[in-house]
């Protein structure tokens, strides 16, 4: 039991530190998954099997999947810049963290933690049955209010993520007209896929050696202009 605790404690603290120090947001999400799974095991060994399963299903399954979904939507390469925008902020944050831990440690050190009563009595008829009994009797009002909260959250997400169409949708006829009357009636040039960069975000080269902007999808070039410039600079050198 003690060995299990120390293993999980070291793993979860290391993963939490990795989460706040890794520059890539996807690594942070995976580290958070490690922390949550360790906590689920800690719940399971503390006579809370229901919460352990809810932790795995709701947090690791649903919430982290939502995080990863939004990360992919926003762009996985949106890594943090390491520049401090406020001078001395990291130092101040570290000092504040140490002070906070000290404060909590002193508080708990002064509190009289009694002996562990254990949950054998409360869990006598099964943990799930005991938790359900409490939820549907003493905490039934909070449980009902939760339903209002969930409905509000779902509505809020729909309102926030909804976008009004500002222009009427173009029909196929209008699209064809736009294209054939526009400056570029032929198909657009394909991206330049070279031996060194096997990727669609590299522009093709015109006969004079300049990059052909039309050959890269505007979605891609808008998403990562800095990276393309970096690669092109590297090529020139």
């Amino acid at each position, binding site marked *: 039991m003690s060995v299990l605790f120390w293993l999980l404690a070291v793993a979860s603290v290391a993963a939490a530190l990795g989460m706040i120090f890794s520059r890539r*947001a996807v690594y942070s999400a995976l580290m958070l998954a490690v922390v949550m799974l360790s906590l689920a095991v800690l719940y399971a060994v*503390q006579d809370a099997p229901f919460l352990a399963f809810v932790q795995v299903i709701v947090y690791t399954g649903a*919430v982290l999947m939502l995080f990863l979904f939004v990360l992919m939507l926003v762009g996985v390469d949106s890594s943090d810049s390491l520049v401090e*925008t406020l001078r001395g902020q990291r130092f101040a944050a570290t000092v*504040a963290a140490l002070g906070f831990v000290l404060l909590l440690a002193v508080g708990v050190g002064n509190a009289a933690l009694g002996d562990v009563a254990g949950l054998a009595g*409360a*869990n006598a008829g099964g943990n799930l049955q005991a938790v359900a009994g409490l939820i549907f009797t003493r905490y039934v009002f909070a449980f009902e209010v939760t339903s209002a909260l969930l409905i509000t959250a779902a509505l809020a997400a729909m309102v*926030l993520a909804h976008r009004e169409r500002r222009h009427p949708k173009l029909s196929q006829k209008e699209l064809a007209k736009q294209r054939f009357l526009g400056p570029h009636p032929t198909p657009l040039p394909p991206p330049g896929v070279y031996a060194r960069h096997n990727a669609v975000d590299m522009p093709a080269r015109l006969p004079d050696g300049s990059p052909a902007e039309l050959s890269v999808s505007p979605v891609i070039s808008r998403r990562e202009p800095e990276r393309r410039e970096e690669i092109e600079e590297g090529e020139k050198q």
Partner: protein
Amino acid sequence: MTPINLIVLSFVLFTIGAVGVLVRRNAIVMFMCVELMLNAANLAFVTFARMHGNLDGQIAAFFVMVVAAAEVVVGLAIIVSIFRTRRTASVDDANLLKY
């Protein structure tokens, strides 16, 4: 596995989450740090439930999980709508109300 060890672990995780909220600039990572703080609080709740021998702490942790799930939905929707208008997920760039 004495409760004091678990309580201290929960403090440490909570503090790491708070530091993450303070130092990171990516809105999504900041949000993950908030989730870490909620999880640390849940660990303390479960430990106190075992210490006192009744299940009220576990119920509190359960409600924290429900609220956290609702909060994630709304928060991520806000991040997506900010990303749509400003093309960035960095909290430094959402500064229209600053001056």
